[in-house]
């Protein structure tokens, strides 16, 4: 990669153009949804990008109006399920990654390999058998019924990222703690966990995004408001009459669920990038 110092004016211009193109390409849909969410129902069909009259009707509708129940319960489901899935994934991944980074045991490579295999396995091919299985054992349309598949999405990346983090922590610290009178568990908790905290945190954010953005499991393994998360619920919004598309409400809801993700990314940008590259380079 070229350092910024070595760039000539032409190269700078080139990079700027490329960056702008990528940014527009990536952000245009978001901006369009944003604009749509403020258009009146009549306005939605017209070709202008920005609304002629800014309105908050769609937001009113999803928070206090007709779609309130659908949206708020699904929002509650989303938050609850995602947080639990993230928490469980991070705890399990921390222990697993610690073992992988520190201990020598048979099957270590298999675990890492299996984690990778799971994460590249197409979700859609698992969904149908899972649907049947969940119905038989009563997990269909429940929170655990979504949390468990979410773990299969979040655990692999968590394990890979965290084991890279743990490998960076000098082993001597733990040995020093043991010599100082700590049990293996105490050494882990008092010397290793505090140092791994930034890594654990990054991993938690990554896992949160993955679970938060899932659509396939959310739509296939739920049938009622009991467990349906927001991305799935968006598909169930209804217009005021059967001839009206609920585009405005869906847009508003989409913007609302994007906000936490954007806020998290802005706050922890640096950590996320370092966490991603660690997983990528060192894993």
């Amino acid at each position, binding site marked *: 990669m070229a350092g910024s110092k070595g760039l000539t004016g032409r190269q700078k211009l080139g990079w700027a153009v490329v960056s702008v193109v990528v940014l527009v390409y990536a952000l245009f849909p978001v901006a369009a949804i944003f604009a749509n969410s403020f258009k009146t129902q009549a306005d939605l069909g017209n070709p202008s990008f920005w609304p002629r009259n800014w309105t908050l009707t769609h937001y009113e509708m999803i928070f206090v109006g007709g779609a309130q129940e659908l949206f708020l319960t699904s929002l509650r489901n989303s938050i609850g399920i995602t947080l639990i899935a993230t928490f469980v994934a991070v705890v399990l991944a921390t222990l697993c990654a610690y073992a992988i980074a520190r201990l020598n045991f048979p099957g270590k490579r298999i675990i890492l390999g299996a984690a990778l295999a799971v994460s590249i396995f197409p979700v859609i091919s698992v969904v149908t058998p899972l649907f049947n299985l969940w119905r038989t054992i009563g997990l269909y349309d429940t929170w655990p019924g979504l949390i468990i598949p979410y773990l299969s999405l979040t655990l692999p990346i968590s394990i890979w990222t965290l084991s890279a983090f743990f490998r960076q922590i000098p082993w001597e610290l733990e040995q020093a703690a043991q010599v100082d009178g700590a049990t293996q568990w105490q050494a882990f908790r008092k010397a290793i966990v505090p*140092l791994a905290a930034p890594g654990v945190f990054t991993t938690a954010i990554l896992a949160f995004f993955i679970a938060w953005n899932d659509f396939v499991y959310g739509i296939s393994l739920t049938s009622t408001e009991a467990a349906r998360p927001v991305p799935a619920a968006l598909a169930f919004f209804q217009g005021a009459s059967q001839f009206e598309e609920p585009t405005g409400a869906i847009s508003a809801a989409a913007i609302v669920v994007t906000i936490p993700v954007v806020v998290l990314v802005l706050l922890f940008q640096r950590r996320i990038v370092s966490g991603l590259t660690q997983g990528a380079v060192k894993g």
Partner: protein
Amino acid sequence: MASITMKNIVKEYDDGFPAVNDISIDIEDGEFVILVGPSGCGKSTLLRMIVGLEDITSGEMLINGERVNDKPPRERNLAMVFQNYALYPHLTVFENIAFPMRLAKGQFSDSEVKEKVQKAAGMLELTEHLERKPANLSGGQRQRVAMGRAIVRDANAFLFDEPLSNLDAKLRGQMRAEISQLQRRLNTTSVYVTHDQTEAMTLGDRVAVLKKGLLQQIASPRELYEQPANLFVAGFIGAPSMNFLPGTVEDGPVGSMSLNTPLGSIELPEELAAAGKGRDIVLAGIRPEFFAEASTVDESKRGRGSIVRAELTHVEWLGNEQYGYISYENDPRVVDTLQNLAHDMDADDLRTQLVVALDATSRVRGGDSADLWVDTRRIHLFDPSTGENLTRDEEAGAELTRLAAEDRKRDRERTAAD
């Protein structure tokens, strides 16, 4: 306070490589023992077996007579200073030092912890830094924090794993002195691993020299220096290293015996000659300071040595003394031995040059030829094939180590009286 006894300790790795091979060492209560050797000699492994971070393949490890082979580190009550200090980066200096006491829940009240940390900090001049984080400390200060963590609890013994190797030369000398004084003051059994023979010589009551997992010799620094057991110990201990000159013992003029070397003939005292006689070739171990410029040697002393004439290739003047270098043609029969020796000691390739210590006032320059007097009584002869010291005086050596032990007892009584 405790004694540490190692009986036939062996460490074998999964691939069957013995990192430590049948080592037995008795460490007395309050003694300061150094494990020294080139990298890969097993010294650190041995230390880690004492503290319990490494499993023992076979043999017995006793602390105060109690077998600890299967005890985890925390039950051995030993304190260790790591090479990279292993300070907890998220804790302040105070909490780093207090860490062992915090782990022993309920044993220390808050005020006790504070008092002990303050005391240790005072001893190590860390009082002003107690609230800082390790990342903001200098190398020497970090080193002291690591020591503070070790001395704050009443450990059975201190174990040091190359604690000074990350410091610059000046600081290393200073910390060496501090460790030595601290150990004397606390009178705690200590085991110290280093690859630096200066540290070994200056700190240890006794020094164990290891090579490839085997104990070569354990003795007081003086005995190692004066009566080395073999070629390896002789070459490893002392700086600059001992010169090894190939030669054959032959009948000299007037009934005396002399050693025929590339430098010329060196007359040998009878006992030495007897040990080397009848052998094809021997290596004469001559330390640089066994040489002197013939003109500066007293008449009375001159008779006790032999004089050779040689051309110096260059000299190094160091202020308090100077070293002269002499090139010579090596005997092909010992090249392999010396090559292996250099390799064992982590040294560069063998150079066939002799180092002689000259008086600082001497005006001999490179290119000059000089008459050099050799103190032949202190020469040792080694068997090039086995490395064995043919002229080692067991009794004289044992006496030196006994004297060192006596010195230590005296030191101990003095500190006890203070």
